[in-house]
């Protein structure tokens, strides 16, 4: 047993970290967020690195790696808060790779893996998917509807911009009829998307924690760095507890996706529930450590806080996932799992 990255995985992590730190400096992130845009040139570079297809088979143009490697990238993307259509495209890729037919995979995966013909995924509520990331630049949209999924070509859908609190990601309201159903195990594929989101949340929380810790070392009040006060230092310790718990749960779920898929449903719900709470609590707690300055638009923290809150409600709220954990851990299905 070895709960640590392999050398290859470590290399992926450090490459991603460096690339993103270099290309998505916070000024850049802010500029894109305020314009509500992405940077196509940077997407080109990401595609060249092979990231969009990291988890896809080599025969479909991917790198043939797994969910663990995707988690490594997602965490770094969250850490950098990179405004890019990566998650949406990866989500579509995961749906096709794990719930698509051979033909669907052959038809769509290569474009997704190369980053040239992108996809996205949305969840329908009464016939409308209110929050679909990057739908305007996707060629295909996977629409989930209570355990089933179908693929719609973007041209066949009505797509309208939807403003969310997270301006670092472009969301759209999507309505479409028909589409081509995915015949495979939709739930298992969705679970992989949940894990990818959990990984992003881990990165967001990690960054918000680091910002809090750095600020606590530097900011002085009453002639002492505020990090010397337990009200602040214990708050930071709590952030570490939650970040490490979220990371451990997410890594485990990723490994399970690759090696023990029969445990994936439970592991994915645990990871998503815990990481969503951690993402929100750590970013909100970091804002409290920052005091007034953390409440200003000028400070970067709020972009992380808003991303965390938004990610938390995509693909199942913490409550929904906890209810599923209760069920999978041995309690029968709840009648009233409404929200």
């Amino acid at each position, binding site marked *: 047993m070895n709960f640590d990255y392999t050398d290859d995985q470590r290399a992926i992590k450090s490459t991603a970290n460096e690339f993103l730190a270099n290309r998505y400096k916070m000024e850049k992130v802010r500029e894109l967020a305020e314009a509500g845009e992405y940077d196509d040139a940077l997407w080109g570079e990401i595609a060249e690195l092979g990231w969009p297809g990291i988890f896809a088979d080599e025969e479909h143009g991917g790198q043939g790696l797994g969910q663990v490697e995707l988690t490594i990238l997602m965490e770094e993307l969250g850490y950098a808060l990179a405004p890019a259509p990566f998650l949406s495209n990866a989500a579509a890729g995961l749906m096709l790779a794990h719930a698509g037919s051979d033909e669907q995979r052959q038809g769509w995966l290569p474009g997704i893996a190369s980053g040239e013909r992108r996809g996205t995924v949305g969840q329908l509520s009464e016939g409308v998917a209110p929050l679909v990331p990057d739908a305007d630049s996707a060629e295909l949209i996977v629409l989930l509807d209570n355990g089933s999924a179908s693929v719609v070509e973007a041209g066949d859908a009505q797509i309208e911009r*939807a403003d969310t*609190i997270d301006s670092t990601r472009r969301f759209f309201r999507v309505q479409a009829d028909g589409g081509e159903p995915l015949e495979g195990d939709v739930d298992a594929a969705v679970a992989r998307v949940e894990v990818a989101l959990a990984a992003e949340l881990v990165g967001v929380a990690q960054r918000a924690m680091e910002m809090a810790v750095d600020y606590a070392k530097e900011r002085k009040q009453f002639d002492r760095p505020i990090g010397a006060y337990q009200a*602040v230092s214990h708050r930071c310790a709590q952030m570490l507890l939650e970040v490490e718990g979220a990371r451990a749960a997410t890594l485990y779920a990723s490994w399970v996706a690759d090696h023990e898929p029969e445990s994936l449903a439970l592991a994915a719900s645990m990871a998503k529930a815990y990481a969503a709470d951690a993402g929100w609590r750590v970013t909100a707690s970091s804002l409290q450590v920052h005091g007034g300055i953390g409440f200003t638009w000028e400070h970067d923290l*709020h972009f992380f806080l*808003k991303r965390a809150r938004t990610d938390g409600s995509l693909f199942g709220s913490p*409550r929904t996932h906890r209810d599923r954990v209760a069920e999978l851990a041995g309690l029968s299905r709840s009648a009233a799992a409404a929200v």
Partner: protein
Amino acid sequence: MDLTLSPQEQAFRDELRAWLEENHPGSEPEGDEAAFEFRKEWQRELADARYAGLSWPEEYGGRGATLIEQAIFNEEMARAKAPMTANVLGLVMGGPVVIAHGTEDQKERYLKPILTAEEIWCQGFSEPESGSDLASLKTKAVKSNGEWVVTGQKVWTTYAHEAKWCMLVARTDPDVPKHKGLTYFLMDMEQDAVQVRPLRQITGEAEFNEIFMEEARIPDENVVGGVGNGWAVAITTLMHERAGLGFGSAIALKIAIGELMDEIRERGLDEDPVIRQRIAQIYIEAECLRLIASRGLTQIMKTGIPGPEGSLVKWQWSDANQALTELAMDVRGREAPLVDDHWTYRFLRARANSIEGGTTEILKNIVAERVLGLPRLR
């Protein structure tokens, strides 16, 4: 113990209600400028009816209202969803400070235009480097040829762009320990040496401003309470602010809870056991803080001194309001991140509740040290 209103209090409320029914100006127009004009006009009407500066002595245009009457006023205004006044800080802090610490000339000069919103006031206490540690502020005032020359920066100033006067605390003596050596000034905002920059918040709005002073001038007659007494003058102002705000915030919270209950019913979640537990807990906390604030008013009226209740109420309020807005997001479910005209703003705005006007950490220190008598760390 008697939680009913006395006949006088009852009469005050009835009169106010009747007046409000006649004079409620409706809702604010769109646009910052228009809204501010609307608030000015509303304040003038209140002042004419002697409902602005309610607590001020009658000789200065107030009613000398008791704290209970002020609480009744705040409650009725909140219930009627009446607009804000334009010159909140002048009414709640500026006027009382001038009345308590000002010279006769100052009273003559400043009080009337506060009441009528002719002159708007803002507050220059906080600085970037001194948030919780107010006494560490660095803005300098140096006396030169009979006037004071001020250089420094202030932050978290509401209404600065509209204000004529700034209640400014600055360091006039760098050589004495930090609480001493501060002086309270009234600074004219209408001079080039004073620059105002809006400070955008995470909500996207610019509710606050930064003020930059580069050799701004203040005549000596604009010192309030004497040179070197700035800390004492500022602190009494802050205590009045807190005592007055507690009760009003409880009412505002209860109104927001009612709105969320409507939302819960509309979404068919009113039988959801988890939601019910959460909203009930917030409802109870709001009620507790209203009651603690009420007990506090009784205490102040008996002893003249604001007790620790102010700190408890502010702290509990920020916890409860944050919990409420988080619940609202959960109630909105999948659509929660979509910017609406109501809950997403409140949700983000609530993050400042545990920071503004005394962080929760500082409030806990105050409770621990001043109420429970626990040793200070520093």
